[in-house]
């Protein structure tokens, strides 16, 4: 399988008043085409930051210090270095090639626009040419089939519209439509673009199994339940059939029965669209449900990357083992990890897990273990292997 995203030596730091927070430290990770890669870890382990770094959305005062993120476009075959792209190019990738589903659907949606408006925006931004094509076809069919008194009055306008839309279909930012869109009254000639976007939106909402999509598209976010909002956010993320869908804890704020519906939806999307999914979660149960491969993070570094079966059946890294033992499983004694999560301001030297690790050696305190391939598809950063 080919790689879709290759992350190398990614370092993200936050420059705060208290000091420098090492959010991500020399991270190497590959996301393959068509796979679901899970990132699991505790709060502050840097899993969300990894997801945000791919889209270059690290909030202030964070900075991507060094490293490279290569995105291999499946359609064009081009390899793009995301960290070197200009902001304009990056915007054409966000929501188009790589899109994101956030944790809190209520906060991800704008409360003053309808669901339909917000999803249409994705199409209007990234699929302008396609919308132009569809609008022109619609006007052309009116020109062909229209008859009666009214049509003869409208005909000249239709011809004008047809010309404008074919211009948009050729060049999304053509001069004439762009100029007209700023003029009152004339801008109404372009009304078919949002109209077509709205039709695509309703299709999209139907795709994520929202009942009565046309009605829901006219609703505002507060009128929908948590599960419905999350479906709408997923529909928005899928609007442009992205090659990579980043889901940052998409089910954390939902109930178990709704969570089960969402996981089912994610599984179906992957099967239907063949997109890769980067699934960030702290819930190991959820990870085992949807992921093909899992990366375990601790204090900004990767501990272990392996297939989901390997992770749960043969975990190697002491942290992974401890994390799995901390999950309440009936009939098993709950085991805790001694100590507290590593301080991100003053991380311990060497392996960051060594103060809490039962099998730490003097070596672990001095030098950082590298991520090593120990079996097929199984990488561990630990001196034990």
């Amino acid at each position: 399988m080919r790689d879709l995203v290759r992350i190398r030596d990614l370092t993200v730091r936050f420059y705060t008043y208290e000091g420098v927070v090492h959010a991500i430290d020399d991270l190497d990770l590959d996301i393959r085409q068509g796979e679901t890669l899970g990132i699991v870890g505790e709060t502050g382990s840097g899993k969300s930051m990894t997801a945000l770094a791919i889209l270059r959305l690290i909030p202030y005062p964070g900075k991507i210090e060094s490293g490279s993120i290569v995105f291999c476009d499946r359609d064009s075959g081009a390899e793009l270095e995301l960290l070197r792209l200009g902001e304009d190019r990056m915007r054409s990738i966000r929501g188009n090639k790589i899109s994101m589903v956030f944790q809190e659907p209520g906060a991800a949606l704008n409360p003053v626009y309808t669901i339909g408006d917000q999803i249409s925006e994705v199409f209007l931004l990234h699929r302008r040419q396609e919308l132009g094509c569809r609008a022109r076809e619609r006007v052309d069919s009116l020109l062909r089939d229209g008859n009666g008194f009214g049509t003869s009055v409208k005909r000249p306008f239709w011809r004008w519209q047809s010309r404008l839309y074919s211009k948009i279909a050729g060049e999304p930012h053509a001069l004439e439509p762009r100029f007209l869109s700023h003029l009152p009254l004339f801008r109404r000639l372009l009304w078919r673009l949002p109209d077509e976007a709205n039709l695509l939106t309703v299709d999209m909402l139907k795709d994520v199994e929202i009942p009565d999509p046309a009605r829901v598209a006219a609703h505002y976010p507060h009128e929908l339940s948590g599960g419905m909002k999350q479906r709408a956010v997923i529909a928005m993320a899928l609007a442009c059939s992205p090659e990579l869908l980043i889901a940052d804890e998409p089910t954390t704020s939902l109930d178990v029965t709704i969570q089960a519906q969402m996981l089912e939806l994610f599984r179906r999307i992957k099967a239907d669209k063949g997109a890769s999914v980067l699934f960030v979660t702290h819930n190991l149960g959820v990870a085992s449900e949807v992921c093909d491969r899992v990366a375990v993070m601790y204090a900004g570094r990767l501990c272990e990357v392996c297939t989901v079966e390997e992770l749960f059946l043969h975990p190697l890294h002491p942290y992974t083992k401890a994390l799995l033992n901390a999950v309440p499983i009936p009939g098993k004694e709950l085991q805790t990890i001694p100590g507290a999560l590593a301080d991100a301001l003053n991380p311990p030297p060497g392996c960051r897990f060594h103060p809490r690790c039962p099998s730490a050696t003097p070596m672990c305190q001095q030098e950082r273990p590298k991520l090593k391939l120990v079996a097929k598809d199984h990488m561990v950063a630990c001196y034990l292997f």
Partner: protein
Amino acid sequence: MNTLVDIRRLKKHFPIVGGVFRRPVGAVKAVDGVSLAIKRGQWLGLVGESGCGKTTLAKTLVRLIKPTSGHIYFDVPDETKALIEDLESQGKNNTKLTYLLKENDLGTFSGDRVRLFHRRAQLVHQDPFTSLDPRMKIKNTVAEPLKIHRVLSGHAVETAIEELLGRVGLTAGQSERYPHQFSGGQRQRIAIARALATKPEFIAFDEPTSALDVSVQAQILNLLKDLRKEFGLTYLYITHELLIAESVCDYIAVMYLGKVVEMGRPEEIFHAPRHPYSQSLVAATPVPDPKRRVGRIVLPGEVPSPANPPPGCTFHPRCSRASKECHELEPPLEPVGGDHYVACFHPL
């Protein structure tokens, strides 16, 4: 084991007001006729989805809110309860019944009597980030119940705080700090220390670990286990994570839309659930085991609004076994062997 907490037909309706005169136009039936008994020393798990009334039930139980109707008995002898039931069934409005209820039913308590009760029953809130006053040093937070209930005074308070903090795994040196200087797990420990301050017999936990990481969650759960053994406490543990309920609780009640639909021991609920809702809830819980992916039941739709619950069995719109009977009649909670109770006309 005798019964410590006994709730009978408990209802809590929140009025919805409307119009110019703010007259009630409806009610959110948060808790709608729950009967539940917690034995002394038991760890009762209350599971259900958000909006099913778990938190309202706990808050009503420790009398932070007054119930609309129904009885709450805390450490009341069985004979008294039987006498009250008996007098009530006669349907007469006699003074003896009024007196008995005033003396025994928590729902009728007010003022000082509620305060005295709070010494014996405490609540730990869900979110340790909002349940602690950010402007109070944690020693004052922990000392507050001692002062309100006039349990201790002077130097005795200081030593008690030290002891309490030590018991929940914090050091005495940390008592001068403010909540923001602690992590989520530590804050929840402070909240637990505060609940323990008055040496209660009963503590209700409202999703104490939902805001915490798995490793911290395990630490808190182990702490709760130890505390129960040490002080002989009785717990009501609210959670939406079934794995926790299954691994720590002695007895489990499943709630749906303000009603208890199934009660039983964990192994009964998880391995032989009788109510279709419990069954799908168990099936929907992600288990960290990639081999167990198959065979899940995905429930259609969402939980209806408690302001306008469906008639009959509240679960019937989402139930695959629903019949005409379920649309019209409300199934009673009936025993199906041992301690296992189910409210369903067509149990599995």
